[in-house]
């Protein structure tokens, strides 16, 4: 154990967790210690997700169908994309209120660029690339005002909220709806992989976590980051595999008339960005600096980190993920209309990240929180819809879940502080 190096013979008693036995007993002891000290991790939200699924499974007749499962993924995908960006912004201790309408800008740009007979009809893939770049640039611009001028992000992005809403109104008030015919764009929320392709994706997704742990164990041998409880590792690996293969199995089983829906591309896009952004946040210098700036901006500045650069880049990421989310939402209805963005997109995205355990005060949280939060909110709203509950109640219940999640988190943080971990 490498800590032996820094633990003196008669100094400071070892951390409680270092006295824990290995193996299965150690796993239980560690889990119990974590729960007692408020290190709940994603546990509450996973339990919540189970509860919601079981509840709707019994009460809503159309909820527990494979077709609805695929719908659920398609509906949650856009929110999850926006929530990814929210995680980074919240990690800095900032806020981005413009993402709802930035998603609209992404959808608008992509719809305009693919418009047949407009004289600038582009291939859908290129159109999407440009739309995302435009949103990233807008995000970077807003971030620059925050970083260089020093205007609070709340105000800057509130301005953005109004401005981009206005741009969308100006563009669509006269024209009504722009239909999206390009198949590549519409694929983002309608394409399903063939059953075989689905299984291959499930295999790849299941292998990534064990591969990352093995990589650490081999490359970081002897360090604390390489110390993994074997049973915990096995349990996590199996859980991920069950989720991946289960999702593919259900999606492959989903049929509308006689066509197999298959694993939706929207879900694969979200998982891809989940993995890529987790890597960015946890394994790169950029990610480390984001956490540092969110934790103590002055310390980060003195350590030679360009705080302004980090801020601008984070707002660019937020813009880009909003753009991608917007495209997925537009693909859902094959068009962009004045009703865009759908529902409470901005608030759902922020709520997803917060329910997922990301702190509003910066420096604390994980990318996975956005995914878990978005899926929970998506499941709630989808289930309540299948129960034909009124929109009013859907908002009220989503709000109550948000409150419960934040309250639980506050208690957990207090427990952590008291136990000194």
């Amino acid at each position: 154990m490498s800590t032996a190096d820094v633990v003196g013979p008669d100094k400071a008693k070892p951390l409680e967790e270092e006295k824990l036995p290995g193996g299965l007993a150690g796993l239980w002891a560690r889990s119990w210690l974590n729960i007692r000290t408020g290190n709940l991790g994603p546990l509450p939200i996973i339990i919540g997700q189970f509860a919601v699924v079981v509840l709707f499974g019994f009460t809503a007749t159309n909820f527990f169908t494979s077709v609805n499962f695929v719908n659920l993924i398609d509906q949650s995908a856009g929110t999850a994309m926006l929530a990814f960006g929210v995680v980074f912004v919240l990690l800095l201790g900032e806020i981005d209120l413009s993402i709802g309408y930035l998603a609209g800008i992404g959808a608008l740009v992509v719809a305009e660029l693919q418009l047949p007979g407009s004289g600038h009809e582009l291939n859908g893939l290129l159109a999407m690339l440009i739309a995302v770049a435009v949103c990233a640039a807008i995000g970077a611009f807003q971030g620059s005002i925050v970083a260089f001028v020093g205007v609070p992000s709340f105000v800057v992005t509130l301005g953005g909220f109004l401005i981009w809403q206005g741009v969308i109104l100006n563009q669509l008030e006269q024209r009504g709806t722009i239909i999206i015919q390009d198949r590549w764009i519409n694929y983002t929320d309608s394409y399903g992989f063939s059953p075989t392709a689905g299984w291959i994706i499930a295999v790849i997704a299941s292998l990534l976590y064990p591969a990352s742990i093995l990589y650490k164990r081999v490359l970081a041998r002897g360090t604390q980051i390489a110390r993994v409880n074997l049973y915990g590792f096995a349990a996590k690996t199996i859980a991920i595999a069950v989720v991946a293969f289960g999702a593919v199995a259900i999606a492959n089983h989903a049929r509308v008339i006689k066509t197999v829906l298959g694993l939706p591309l929207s879900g694969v896009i979200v998982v891809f960005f989940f993995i890529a952004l987790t890597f960015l946040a946890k394994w790169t210098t950029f990610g480390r600096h984001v956490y540092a700036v969110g934790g103590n901006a002055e310390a980060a500045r003195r350590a030679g980190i360009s705080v302004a650069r980090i801020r601008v880049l984070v707002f660019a990421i937020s813009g880009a993920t909003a753009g991608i989310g917007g495209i997925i939402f537009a693909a859902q209805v094959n068009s962009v209309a004045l009703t865009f963005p759908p529902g409470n997109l901005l608030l759902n995205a922020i709520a997803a990240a917060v329910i997922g355990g990301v702190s509003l005060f910066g420096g604390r949280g994980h990318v996975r929180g956005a995914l878990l939060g978005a899926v929970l909110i998506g499941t709630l709203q989808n289930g309540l819809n299948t129960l034909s509950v009124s929109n009013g109640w859907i908002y009220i219940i989503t709000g109550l879940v948000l409150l419960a999640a934040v309250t639980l988190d506050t208690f957990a943080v207090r427990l952590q502080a008291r136990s000194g971990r």
Partner: protein
Amino acid sequence: MSDTPLLQLRGITKTFGSVEALTDVEFEVNPGEVMALVGDNGAGKSTLVKCIAGTHTADHGHISFEGREVHINGPKDAARLGIEVVYQDLALCDNLDVVQNMFLGREINKFQVLNEAAMEYRTSETLKTLAVTTIKSVRQPVATLSGGQRQSVAVAKAVQWNSKLVILDEPTAALGVAQTEQVLALVRRLGERGLGVILISHNLHDIFETADRITVLRLGRSVAVFDRRSTTQQAVVEAITAGMPTKVAGVTQSHDEAQA
């Protein structure tokens, strides 16, 4: 101790508008020496340190480092020479662990991908060579450390880059008795390892326990340099206050002065 001082300042003058913060200051630190810098509030300690650390540039005067004349025009110049400052508010990120703080801004990476293992090894090494034995795990968040442990991490962070001169700004100001002992022991070890240490403190007790020599600033001038072994706290206090010990906290007023 070698003949050439590690750092030598001659005739340093610094003005802010019409205020002369430093006038003709003479100051030196030898390798392996703990030099205390004392003075009343407003005596110019912070300004002098900022001139050494590159935050300010002196208007006049010469700075030589390891016998060579140098110009320090920014914190980067100072860092390149091997001068590190541990500020009073420590500049640690509470949400990051010890390893992450130690390498903040200078992470070991390959194509921007972090090498956590190498950073953890080197952190353990550094803490071991400094005999920092109170930190239980290098992977615990700094938020969970005590004041003394945090100070130790901040000092270790400053000295791990082969620095030659470490400036400590009030390192024990916020600490309890046991933790103060811890940090002072660490300061002495820095000197024993051959580093030059500038110790800024208001606490003469700490200084007499740690420092080899004491430089006194008063109203922007260097007024005295004492050898710790051949002086008394009373002499230092008198130099700080120009013979008016009534103005020093903790020193009781004598009867006739109180009447005057």
